[in-house]
């Protein structure tokens, strides 16, 4: 069953919270993972792997650099779910 966009955002916020300790409310769509949330490349990989497991999608390494904002990740996961 596909996740709704709101469910993806909420799930992603939980994953970010687990990895970084940031409050889930801080994980807003327009926020940049690097500049706003201060997430480094290694934590980002952990978040990506956990998102793959949670949402049942594949996010290749080469695509991770394109996930600049939280919304980018939500859109990517939504699209990957449809594939």
């Amino acid at each position, binding site marked *: 069953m596909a996740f709704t966009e709101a469910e993806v955002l909420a799930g992603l916020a939980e994953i970010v919270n687990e990895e970084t300790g940031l409050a889930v409310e801080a994980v807003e769509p327009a926020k940049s993972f690097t500049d706003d949330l201060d997430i480094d490349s*290694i934590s980002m*990989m952990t978040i990506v792997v956990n998102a793959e497991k949670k949402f049942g999608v594949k996010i290749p*390494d080469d695509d991770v650099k394109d996930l600049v904002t939280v919304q980018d990740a939500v859109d990517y996961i939504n699209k990957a779910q449809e594939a």
Partner: protein
Amino acid sequence: MPTLKTAETGSFSKIAGIGAYRAENLVTNDDIAGPINSSDEWIRQRTGIITRRRASKDVGVLDMCEEAALEAIASSGLKPEDIGGIIISTVTFPYMTPSAAAALTDRLGTGPVPAWDISAACAGYCYGIAQADSLVRSGTMDNILVIGAEKLSDIIDPEDRSISFILGDGAGAVVVTSADEPGISKTVWGSKGENWSTIRMTESLIDVRDDRETPFPTLRQDGPTVFRWAVWDGAEVAKEALTAAGIEASDLAAFIPHQANMRIIDELAKQLKLPESVVIARDIADNGNTSAASIPLATERLLREQPELSGGLALQIGFGAGLVFGAQVIRLP
């Protein structure tokens, strides 16, 4: 038709003794942060490294091998003339040929024994243990020196932010001997050639030959890709190694992964759900990433600081450029 004679099958194999060479110069994060526009805090946060050790200009890979080897031979209760073969894992011996191992036979006075180098980067020590284990059990050789030795400071670029700042120099050596009981489990090892360039030299030697303006080749890596592979694929390899050894994580006394990055070590341990009773090697904080040398160096330190671990089981896993990986369970000497 005559039947060919083969080596008389040996018994089991074990690691009988261990030795280490730690480079003399302690290099702090502040010492190297400038050219990469970084800081002590940034390096600690991303790698867990506080210092790394680097050798002086006049100390080469062979010097490091010799010191570690002599210590390993002595701690095994052997003499150089008892050594039946030498395997050195290194990517920093500065000659493509002849090998470092052949030169070491002469330095140690082992006699004319088989000696060769292997190129398996950070998995090289585990590859060497796999080879020595097979050679001893097959009856082909006994008392094999396995050495991981690197002078990585020769292939770093002070301005590189991908890998140079984590690297150190050093050598670790063990002697693999025949044994009455199994002391080395079946190795789980392999490669992932589609990621050949994930950890790589900047140029080939032919590039340098053909264009003398080409800078001296140095090492680079795609850090996040390495992290993902080392942790999640590495955890599967480590679990396979436990299964191949017929043991559970709770049977381990120690977990000794390649000392690549503290965050890889932490995440690997998390994925493996290691019980708190398992001691985790964290030599990287003080000695940096020494590639093939890191597992034997970390092992030597654990045994020196916690001698009660001797006789216990340790899961060791190496992973690195190739990409290549290898893991086995050993009984600590």
